[in-house]
């Protein structure tokens, strides 16, 4: 059991590391957002599942188990909303990538509306 928990948490650390490297290396703001989603999905999920197993089978503490599960559900529900809101707000505020994007349908349609 201890081995399984270690594997889960190390898996989570690996994906969080990949997301962090992506956030530092990616060329423009929107690609950095994609890497931050990487942190917020698998970087969280491994710790949550491992923590549930640890709290339930080692600590025998029901309250902690339920709180960790609630934290996981909370992250999964709220993160896409915040990410979408920041992406749209940044685009409307005028953040554009330095390198030209391959195709930009949203920008074309925004220009047409005005």
């Amino acid at each position, binding site marked *: 059991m201890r081995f399984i928990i270690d594997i889960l948490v190390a898996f989570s650390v*690996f*994906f969080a590391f*990949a*997301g962090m*490297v*992506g956030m530092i*290396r*990616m*060329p*423009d703001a*929107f*690609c950095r*957002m*994609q*890497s931050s*989603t*990487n942190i917020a*999905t*698998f970087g969280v999920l491994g710790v949550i599942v491992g923590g549930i197993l640890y709290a339930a089978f080692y600590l025998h503490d*029901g*309250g902690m188990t*339920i*709180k960790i599960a*609630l934290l996981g559900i909370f992250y*999964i*529900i709220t*993160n*896409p*909303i915040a*990410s*979408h809101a920041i*992406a*749209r707000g940044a*685009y409307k505020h005028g953040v554009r*990538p330095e390198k030209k*994007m*391959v*195709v*930009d*349908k*949203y*920008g074309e*349609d925004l220009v047409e509306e005005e």
Partner: protein
Amino acid sequence: MKKIKISAVLSTAILCFIFWLLITGQIISIFRGRPSTQVLIAGVLVSAAVGFFSGRFFIHKKAFHLLGARFIYLLQYCFYIFPQELWKANVDVALRALSKDLPVNPGIVKVPSNLRTDYGQAMLADSITLTPGTITMDIVEEEGQVYYYIHWINVETEDPVEAGEMIKGTLEAWSGRIWE
């Protein structure tokens, strides 16, 4: 002021009360047979107040839509279908970030969707945003057809229908099955 629907208030209040039970740890006390009456009464009062004031923001049509077979579909979606997509996309983006020459090819594509209800559209948009590699920027409705603007880290095709197939995969069919 809009008329307050009883079902909206009731369902929001029930959800708040379940959350209260979980976060105060009372649900374990109930299973052990000695719940604290004061905490339960405070929870009922607070969740009734929250439901009364904010129920009309959350529920627009049918309040108890999810009960029944749709709930089974929702569980199946959350624990079996969606994690597969999540796994594929996560490995893809992680390898992209860690590889040496950083192969990104970003762009924003416009994708049509067949979903009708608000909840279905919201759930598909959330699923797309939660998958690494794609972010939903906006949802518009033009001449009765719903379009999604999606930022995609590796644009392989610009054709709307083909891009929709590649991004949405099986998610759209499941979302429709749950919410329509």
